């Protein structure tokens, strides 16, 4: 039980996919303009991570070593298709906002990385908690980045204006702003880690 809890918790801080593993930066940079986009992207990626981790942990002994990556991709693509169609059916506005980045979860390094580095070597239960932890860690990182960018770049949070008379810096809503915010946060978390060590 303690082992499972550890597998779950490591993805959130100690091995956070965005700030420690620095994986999946492409969707992180692209969709973190607003908090709602960040949450949507995070949930979709968590769902895909969970599904692919479970299935790959189940079939790991039947996948030939030399074609394992195509096999993983087929499994991941299946779950991405489910996520995309669900999003299209129930939340078309979010689907339009995220655009191409939902189908692109197929090639998200976090998902493939966990399949290759974890699920293909561990039990189903462990892989489930690993996927859940990683997904939540990814979602939290996205929420943090997009909250900063939405507040400083557009003056709102979840679409609500916060402070009267605050003049947002448009640059943070642009791609250069995404690189700035992620770079500064990475530096900040590295500083914290160095202080602790």
């Amino acid at each position, binding site marked *: 039980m303690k082992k499972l809890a550890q597998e779950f918790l490591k993805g959130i801080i100690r091995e956070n996919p965005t700030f420690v593993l620095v994986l999946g930066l492409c969707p992180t940079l692209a969709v973190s303009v607003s908090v709602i986009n960040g949450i949507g992207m995070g949930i979709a990626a968590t769902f895909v991570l969970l599904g692919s981790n479970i299935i790959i942990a189940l079939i790991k002994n039947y996948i030939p070593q030399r074609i394992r990556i195509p096999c993983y991709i087929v499994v991941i693509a299946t779950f991405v298709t489910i996520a995309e169609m669900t999003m299209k059916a129930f939340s078309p506005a979010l689907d339009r906002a995220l655009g191409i980045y939902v189908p692109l979860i197929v090639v998200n390094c976090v998902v493939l990385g966990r399949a290759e580095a974890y699920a293909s070597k561990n039990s189903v239960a462990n892989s489930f908690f690993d996927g859940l932890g990683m997904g939540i860690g990814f979602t939290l990182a996205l929420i943090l980045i997009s909250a900063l960018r939405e507040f400083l770049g557009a003056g709102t949070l979840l679409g609500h204006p916060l402070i009267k008379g605050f*003049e947002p*810096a*448009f*640059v943070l809503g*642009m791609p250069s702003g995404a690189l700035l915010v992620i770079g500064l946060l990475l*530096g900040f978390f590295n500083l914290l880690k160095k202080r602790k060590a």
Partner: protein
Amino acid sequence: MNKLIVSVSPHLHNKESISKIMWMVILSLIPAGAAGIYIFGIDALWVIILAVVSALATEALIQGFTKKKITIFNGSALLTGLLLGFNLPPKVPFWLPIVGSCFAIAIGKMIFGGLGQNIFNPALVGRVFLLASWPKYMTTFIQPMAAWGGYDAITYATPLALLKEGKLTEKIPYLDLFLGNRGGCIGEVCIVALLAGAIFLFIRGYLSWHIPITYILTTGIFTYVFGPKGLFTGDWLFHILSGGLILGAFFMATDYVTTPLTRKGQIIFGFGCGVLTAVIRLWGGYPEGVSYAILMMNAATPIIDRYTKTRIYGTR
């Protein structure tokens, strides 16, 4: 034993120091600043003071926080603040120069490790950040000399903005452009004062002609060749005298830290800046391209340095 300094040859001593050079550059910028304040009124002075003070404060805070030696008196942060103030319109909200200076020093300089480590010219980093973030304030200019006519301010467009929008109906006299009787940023308008400062630096040997002259000539030739009515019809003198070209070419494209070391590299740097400035002005989305041109060539500086290394004597 510790008092013995062991270093490689040549054992030459030069009495110049970073702070002396910085203070000389600051001194040479004073006429242009004074002219800007005279032209646009006392508001311009406040913009410059806010930019300078917050640049110094940011540097001191960061150096205090990271427990480094506090070097705010060597003039480099003061120069960054001053140049940023020169690059702002005369009438902006009071927080704009403060935010710009903080960003210029913190992100443009200190994050790379301080003076000598930065890739980009900090003052221009600050200016471009402000321009991308609050374009409304950064592109609202006021009429020159309005303060002397009893007005607070009259909004006014820069000659280059008029040109871009196709509204430049009557020709602005070159003498007005030369003396600074036009809309623009505080420190860029009075060409004669800028040239006086540049000549002073040139005579004292703090400035070499390579970057500024190649830069200005390239821009002039390009804007002449690709004129509005076909080849070789451009108004090159207008392009040289308007916008921030003179300020940029003499005082920002010549920053020791972010430009190539060799003469050959400096000429390539100046040429690149000139081409980029002309291209942005003639076909780009912005009316003015000096800051972007210099920043882009700053990014190219390491590679220019690599390919223009001087041959070591006696090797092939």
